[in-house]
């Protein structure tokens, strides 16, 4: 049994290698990862297409791709995309706009933190899906109930992380500012705010995942349109290829949103030493 690779060096030290081996090792991660993925896809294709496993249950990659192709030529699909997208954007945007300033305020004011702490903690502990019946009673099964679910899902992590960022502003930097007689506003803008940015991004990324989850959960529970609705419908009618395609769309969205946030974060954080 081999020791974990990162600890091998500590245990055994360097070992001599040939140049071909080294070339492979540099790209090993890609090779094995990509390779396994390809193998699984091929296996899936074989199983489904040959009928060894009823395609009604698992479909296969080319069938899924075909379903996607057909859907993207129909109006209904894009309507669903628009509905889900607006739910996400409205809810996430509102969460961003409200939770960041509120998080900053709560981080700065102990009293405020004491007062809204219980509510934030409770909302954090509730799985939003349990609130869905209530939200539906209040907002109906249209787009607004989903917006509320998305908002709640994103706002809480953004608020908590922003608050956390303010509170962990390093005392030594604040001391520097004070020694230069910086005004309180200056301390906030030049020390606290820049120091909180990494935390805000953590909250944004986590919130994006929860927002997307909110879209799905809200639409699965009760909706008349949207991608989640499409998946649920397709599931009921055993259109497994459509279901897979829908899941893929959500997966792609998740990856894209996080990648976008990462890119924006990197622009803000040129000053950070990049690990590895």
């Amino acid at each position, binding site marked *: 049994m081999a020791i974990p690779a990162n600890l091998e060096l500590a245990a055994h030290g360097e070992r001599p290698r040939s140049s071909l081996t080294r070339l492979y090792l540099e790209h090993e991660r890609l090779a094995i990862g990509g390779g396994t993925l390809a193998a699984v896809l091929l296996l899936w294709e074989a199983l489904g297409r040959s009928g060894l496993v009823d395609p009604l249950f698992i479909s296969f990659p080319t069938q899924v791709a075909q379903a996607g192709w057909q859907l993207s030529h129909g109006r209904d699909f894009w309507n669903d995309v628009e509905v889900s997208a607006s739910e996400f954007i409205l809810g996430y945007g509102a969460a961003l706009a409200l939770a960041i300033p509120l998080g900053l305020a709560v981080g700065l004011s102990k009293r405020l933190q004491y007062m809204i702490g219980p509510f934030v903690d409770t909302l954090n502990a509730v799985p939003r899906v349990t609130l869905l019946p209530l939200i539906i009673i209040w907002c109906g099964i249209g787009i607004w109930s989903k917006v509320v679910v998305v908002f709640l899902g994103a706002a809480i992590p953004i608020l908590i992380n922003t608050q956390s960022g303010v509170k962990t502003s390093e005392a030594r930097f604040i001391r520097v500012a*004070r020694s230069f*007689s910086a005004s309180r506003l200056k301390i906030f803008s030049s020390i606290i705010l*820049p120091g909180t940015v990494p935390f805000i991004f953590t909250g944004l990324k986590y919130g994006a995942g929860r927002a997307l989850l909110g879209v799905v959960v809200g639409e699965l529970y009760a909706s008349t349109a949207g991608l989640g609705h499409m998946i649920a419908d397709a599931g009921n009618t055993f259109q497994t290829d459509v279901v897979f395609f829908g899941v893929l769309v959500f997966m792609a969205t998740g990856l894209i949103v996080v990648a976008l946030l990462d890119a924006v974060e990197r622009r803000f954080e040129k*000053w950070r030493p990049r690990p590895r």
Partner: protein
Amino acid sequence: MPAKLEAQDIRLEYFQPRTNTRLLALDGVDLKIMDGEFVSIVGPSGCGKTTFLSVVDGLIAASAGRILVDGQAVTKPGPDRAVVFQDASLLPWRTVLNNVRYGLECLNVGAREAKERASHFINLVGLSGFEHHYPYELSGGMQQRVNLARALVMDPKILLMDEPFASLDAQTRELMQEELLQIWVQAKKTVLFVTHQIDEAIYLSDRVAVFSGRPGKVKATIAVAIERPRRLAIKREPRFHAIEDRIWGLIEGDVKVDRNRRNIDRSDRSF
């Protein structure tokens, strides 16, 4: 001639809510520094050297006594005193240039003027070319030089330095000491320097103030009658050693007492 910096009978007392007692940190510190002098403070750990520096800078208010700069009493931080902290504490999200001009920004100095002044002092500390680097790209010694430039650019009347070389390795430390003297000559500042290392204090200073153990007060002031400019090699001369012996003799007893006390304090830690 009036002193540049004068501390009159500084006392500092802390109230400790946990044990409901009062702790005396500084017990009547008297110190006078003339214009252009380089004065060091040495003393055992915990004797209040850094606390005293904070009082001089105005970050902590003394319980009794006054601090006078050019004859005027001061109670808050101000542009007439600048601190070089032990931890460089460069703002990691700002470039070297922006770090150095931070203090000027706080005083609402115009951008162009701030940039010129900052560049001048970045040059003075030997870091020209690094203006647009980020702190994480600099070594410890380089960061301390930025720290120094940041303080000097304020054109303070007094430069306060709190063990600025403590986190550097021994060899870098020696070189920085020599460099500091060169910069000091060029910048023509009055300096109050706090350190643990006796040889560092003697090498750099015109006078060395020796602090007693807690509660802190000035036990004695030793004049360093070695001519300037001083090469590092003088540290190995007998007259240098003689002064070292004298100072060590003054604080040895206090160091031993303090070490025992701290061991007891540490075992009492319940937080």
